[in-house]
């Protein structure tokens, strides 16, 4: 667990009077499941967006597998092996579940040319079916994504982040709005993926039960800055964290 896959240095982002992200630095190690927690508005999503090319940070840099990845577009970062979800549900409602999943993988196969003249599914149907089954969405495969329930769409949204075989998966509140049984399943899915493929995870989540039982390490953000870092046990007993959450 010593290989750094991502290294974040001094990232800051200000919106008007709000310092949304305040000089944040941390490393992500290969194969870990890193939790990112913090009160509402503490800057978690903004930090994700700064790291993933969605928002331009005012300051700071990101390295991925030792290469400078600052300023790359989201699609370039995706090609470098980063899968992500957004806090808001983001599926393609008027495409089938299968098409959603194939889309999530097609740009990683062949060339622009082969994607026009090659197979309509880019040869990805078998792989997509495996992923759909892995997330237990088989019975919804040919439904329009928009006709799925919120929780099912959330699951599909997460599944898309896995399709391209990423080395790092970054999830923004995957558990929000998902019922308990499904959540248990989902946690198992993430663990299995982590074990079988060595995939590294960074997970933003408010559900403490979920974070503490899933993550191997946790970062705590408050007012845009990291105020604590440690194992789930350490974090749960950290006075600063307790204060931050209880109106400190």
């Amino acid at each position, binding site marked *: 667990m010593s290989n750094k896959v991502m290294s974040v240095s001094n990232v800051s982002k200000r919106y008007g009077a709000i310092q949304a992200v305040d000089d944040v630095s941390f490393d992500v190690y290969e194969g870990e499941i890193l939790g990112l927690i913090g009160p509402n508005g503490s800057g978690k999503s903004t930090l994700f967006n700064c790291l993933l090319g969605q928002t331009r940070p005012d300051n700071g840099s990101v390295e991925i597998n030792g290469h400078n990845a600052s300023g790359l577009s989201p699609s370039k970062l995706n090609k470098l092996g980063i899968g992500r979800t*957004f806090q808001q549900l983001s599926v393609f409602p*008027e*495409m089938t579940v299968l098409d959603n999943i194939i889309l999530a993988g097609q*740009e990683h196969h062949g060339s622009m040319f082969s994607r026009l003249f090659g197979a*309509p599914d880019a040869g990805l149907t078998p792989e997509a079916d495996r992923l759909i089954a892995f997330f237990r969405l088989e019975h919804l495969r*040919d*439904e329009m994504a928009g006709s799925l329930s919120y929780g099912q769409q959330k699951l599909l949204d997460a599944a*898309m982040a896995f399709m391209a075989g990423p080395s790092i998966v970054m999830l923004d509140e995957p558990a929000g709005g998902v019922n308990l049984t499904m959540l248990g399943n989902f946690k198992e899915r993430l663990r299995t993926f982590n074990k079988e493929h060595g995939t590294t995870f960074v997970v933003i989540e408010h559900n403490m039960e979920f974070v503490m039982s899933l993550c191997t390490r946790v970062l705590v953000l408050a007012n845009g800055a990291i105020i604590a870092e440690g194992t789930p046990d350490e974090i749960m007993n950290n006075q600063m964290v307790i204060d931050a959450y209880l109106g400190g």
Partner: protein
Amino acid sequence: MMTKRNMWLLAGLIALILAPLGQGNYVVYTLCSWLIFSMAAMGLNLTLGYAGQISLAQSAFMAIGAYTTALLTLPPAEDGVGGLGLHWLVAMPISVFAAFVVGLIIGFPALRVKGHFLAFVTLAFTTLTFLVLRNEDWLTGGTYGLVGMPRPDFGFFNTGKQLRFYYFTLAVFVVFCLLMWGIIRSPWGRAFKALRENSIRAESLGVDTRRITLLAFAIGSAAGGLAGSLVAPLVQFIEPGSFALVHSLKMLLMVVVGGAGFFFGPVIGAGVVILMPEFLRFTEGYYLMIYAATVIVLIIFCPKGLIGLGEIIRNKLRKDKKVRGDMDKGAQL
């Protein structure tokens, strides 16, 4: 094995083959222009209906196709504006390519602006094209336009007669539909739809949204160029007014009326938009008002167009068939 869909397509094709038989020149001419406008509208449907980028420039791309083809196919003139006397088979690909390249360039504003602003940018381009065609009369013949473009002669098949030109147009239409269908169901087509539905998510999944946006414009424009390339020999007289803004709006209507994002929507839309004035002719001056009112009603009550309306009715009739896949497995979730 023939699927139901293929049966419908075959029936449609047979209908198109039989349609002009025994009809007068005017009806055959109208059918030709229906097919040609269908192609232009299908191109716009790719840009607007599939990729979600509004364009009011489709008539300008038709103009590019028509004038390019005209200038390449007209015989050289001793005085006044003449052409190069090339065959349509040479002129058409050049015209389509010209529209493709200009479409690519017009796509760049779409990378920065969306919605109403994009509509204005493309509208400005249509107006600009109109002015260039009118003012650069050394090349375009100005307000007098260009006259007498030859209809292609393939040796064994001369398209000079109206009926023959119709079958020639139909052949181009069929090939065009196959190409469009290939694009729509390819990964490119999937990326176009993803761009329309959630461009940020698409980008995060590795779709190069810049490139896909430009391609959506370029391919849609190329279809406009192809349509223009057929208009020149059909009408044998083109002038700037034939490609004014109102025609861009008409094509927008064809897409919306037929159902944006449905493959054959624009064909139905083009039929309605072209034929309705004919049916409403008895109302004399009022037909434009009736026409506009119908369109507004359609957009309000049936935003998915006539094909969408058909689908709604079909789903109502077969309600039992449309059970969501998860309803019977609810317990396991």
